[in-house]
């Protein structure tokens, strides 16, 4: 599913460098990424998403060398195949929960919003137990409810790869577990690959594999 070979990455303005000789994940695999702050965990997720491009090396997702795609194609590939779950949920305050879930379909021509998509969104929300909040705005939801909505948004395009950056970082312990359960449920249901950056070590045993970023050479002023 994912394959990274000998990538070298460096931010244009700064000293940080990341070198990843090799990294991979199979379809359906749940991989946790751990490491100290500034080690490049989020950078890895951005490289996998095609948001950043390496100076050298190959990044393949679903057998597509995404770093060879141009910016527009990378964005299209990303929105069709990769779902993002953020630590701060990143829901839009001015949209209802329902519109937030459908949001990816409104910001790109690569996805077509149809009645079938709307129905799927509703089913997703039901599975995430937030169907009753679809007409509310994020400001009216609890932290856990917001993250569930964010997960629905990430899952709706049926992505092959889910990238979660500290998805449980802002949740209380009870919600952490619950959210992770829901995330895993949906990942399994879609047979998607999950790469999650986390600082929550108590959650690590639930993942198929844990990758410690200290193993990869990095440095710089982070």
């Amino acid at each position, binding site marked *: 599913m994912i394959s990274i070979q000998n990538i070298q990455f460096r931010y244009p303005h700064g000293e940080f460098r990341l070198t990843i000789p090799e990294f991979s994940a199979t379809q359906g695999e749940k991989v946790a990424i751990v490491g100290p702050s500034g080690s490049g965990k989020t950078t890895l997720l951005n490289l996998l998403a095609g*948001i950043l491009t390496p100076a050298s090396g190959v990044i393949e997702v679903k057998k597509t060398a995404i770093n060879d795609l141009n910016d527009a194609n990378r964005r*299209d590939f*990303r929105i069709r195949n990769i779902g993002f779950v953020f630590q701060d949920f990143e829901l839009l305050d*001015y949209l209802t929960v329902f519109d937030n879930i459908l*949001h990816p379909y409104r*910001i*790109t021509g690569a996805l077509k919003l149809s009645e079938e998509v709307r129905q799927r969104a509703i089913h997703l929300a039901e599975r995430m137990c937030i169907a009753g909040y679809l007409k509310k*705005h994020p400001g009216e939801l609890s932290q856990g409810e917001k993250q569930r909505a964010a997960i629905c948004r990430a899952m709706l395009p049926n992505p092959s790869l889910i990238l979660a950056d500290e998805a449980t970082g802002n949740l209380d312990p009870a919600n952490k577990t619950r959210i992770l359960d829901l995330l895993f449920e949906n990942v399994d249901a879609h047979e998607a690959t999950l790469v999650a950056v986390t600082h929550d070590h108590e959650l690590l045993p639930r993942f198929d594999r844990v990758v410690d970023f200290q193993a990869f050479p990095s440095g710089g002023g982070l």
Partner: protein
Amino acid sequence: MDSLYLAWQYVRFNKAKTIILVASITLIAVLPLALESLLTESERQLLVRAESTPLLIGTKGSALDLVMNSLYFDDEIPELMTMEAVERIHDTQFALPIPLYVRFQARGHPIVGTTFDYFEFRRLSIDQGCPLTMLGDCVLGAKAAELLGIGPGDDLVSSPDNLFDLAGVYPLKMKVAGVLAPNHSADDLAVFVDLKTAWVIQGLGHGHQDVTRTRDNSVVLKRADGNVAANAKLYHYTEITEDNLDNFHFHGDMSIYPLTAIIAVPNDEKSGALLRGRYLDRDDTEQAFLPAEVIDGLLQNIFRIRNVIDSVIAVVGLAMVLVIILVFTLSLRLRQREIQTIFRLGCRRAMIGRMLLAEIVLILSVSGVLCMAVLGVVNANAEELVRRLLMG
């Protein structure tokens, strides 16, 4: 469409910011356009009225005051002239003189003392009731009747000049004979009376019992030389009725009775020029001029003032535009996180641009619609607004 939908949700959610932006843009758009509309209408009204008045004659002094009082019934009363001037014009046979005495008011509306010819000259027709017939009658302009809430058969009392001047003008109860059809001019707000009725209001004419036949000596000061001098005890009627009409009369030489102006309607162009020529003597106490020339001069001044106002509005408008740009820029900064998120989700740069542009387009569209609505209201009421402004 998606970008419009998202933009619509955004402006709806941020109501306060949206309202302020829309209001600001509407204001800077509406102000100059509304002002332009009102000024254009002012020009039109002033010119139409002035051009339809061939020649105006009055005592030498401010021509503008004379025009404003005679054509628009402004309450600034010009220097008075006398009825004798009317007879002089009549004797020349160059023009039809239409005297005006615009001095008094009735419940805030100017009383225009004139002759029957005025109505034909201004093409005023009766909509209700009948024209001026007898002393004490008044005919109301359409708007005056509507505002006063009176019609044919009702009474209207003239307003006293000065509540504390006991020797001054007394109120006269006039009978509303008729109401004119709308004319869309200053005539709509006026109360028309026969010139003689205006003189009665002033006290130059009055009605009382016949002192030459009365047996009540308490009202008689002196009887001598075929004349009976009455004293102040003699009661003067405050209303002219068909019963006491016979008792109304005027004292003294009517050729020196006052007027505010005379509209002269020349028989032809040559007669007009000849008549005007008679007032060119520097020692003459009277002047004759074309109202259109005076109004044209006034409009030239207005035009200069308008340029200044336009410049001020332009500067203010520019400042407003800069502020609006700043607001949008700050808004963009506030949405930076949102932009980053959708960027990370996979949104193309063009779409981001479209979303932000859609917000601007939406706000501008709403402002545009509001602007058109406000301008529509202003244009629909410009005539009335301007007329009220001119009338004061």
